[in-house]
């Protein structure tokens, strides 16, 4: 289950954005971006970004990202 913010952020990072450029794109502070990534890593029980990528890649990024929490409510 991913929030719309997590989804947007992962899409940008997957497209090669740095934290800083993703933060600018999303109108978030760099701190919020690193917090968001950290909370994703905690939830997927991984310790670094390489593992985060692996976990999402194995799930299939599209599949992993479909169904944000907003969708789930509707």
């Amino acid at each position, binding site marked *: 289950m991913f929030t719309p913010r997590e989804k947007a952020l992962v899409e940008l990072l997957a497209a*090669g954005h740095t934290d800083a450029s993703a933060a600018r794109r999303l109108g978030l502070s760099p701190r919020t971006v690193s917090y968001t990534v950290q909370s994703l890593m905690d939830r997927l029980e991984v310790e670094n970004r390489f*593992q985060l990528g*692996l976990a999402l*890649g194995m799930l299939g990024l599209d599949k992993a990202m479909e169904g944000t929490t907003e969708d789930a409510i509707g």
Partner: protein
Amino acid sequence: MPSLVRWGVSADADLVYRALASFGAREAGVIAVELGLSASRTRQALDELTAIGAAAPRAAVWRAAPPAQVVEQVRARRIRAQAAVDPVARYVQVLRDAGIGEAASVRPDLRVRILGGVDATRRRLAALADAAAHEHLSIQPESVHSGVATAAAAHADVPLLDRGVRVATVCLPPADGDAYSQRMLDSGMAARFASSLPLKLILVDRRHAILPLDPLDRSKGAIEVADPAAVEVLASVFRREWATGRDPERGAVAPIVLSGREEDLIRLLAAGQTDEVAARRLKVSPRTVTTLVRALMDRLGVENRFQLGLALGARATELPGLLPPDRQRGTAGIPAQRRGSA
């Protein structure tokens, strides 16, 4: 006076609308006082009514649109909103847009007919495919898990492609990954992948459209539509799904072969080891680890480790035993029902 609340209109807006419709046109300030609403809530309610076409101001005086018209508008809006999330509602909406719907069996003028049962549907689809002159489009919302079904579908498409018929399909991303999509693409069929599709639909030469009679029960058969306007609406449904689908040629996952040393390194990093620990384990310098990772990133055309993880994760099936077993299943932190529902 019908309640608008059941069609998704807020209670405030409903109240203001009733007041306007019952007591006649008034200024916003007067409405607020009469209904005991704050100015801002009144303003919000009026904004909402304006947005749904239920009220409009003229020289600061607000008037209500006729109730019957408003109810029809909010009802249609509600159905559209539901259609966005509910496949059955989407199906009904597609039929309604095409002007068929429940009228199908009683509107011969629309050139609609019912194909009763799976066999009749299959025979008709085969006949239409045989007769197809230039185009065969389909939306396939059913997941293709069975290799047999895939092979059968591929065989059916080959004669079409051989005759120069353009075959295009929008379907769910294939469950068995590259093999299936590659077979499809190799056969010359164009495909787009989407994770949610409104209905099964087949369009032949933009003259015949076939869609299920009941979106939840294929055994009931299908509806064939030959009315040009209705077919055009259905073709626009296809075009919309096509336009928003993922192009497998662009998102294609190219195969990768790792050297023994790369495999060892990835295995360590996948287990959560740092570069330093991995270097010690492999008896190489940390700089060599960095170089190996950099070379791998270059080969995969990615710029950071997150992307490297994504790229390798997407190829997990080609790299057996490389990734830790708990990750191999891709289960970490994702509740079972979420995975199942995808």
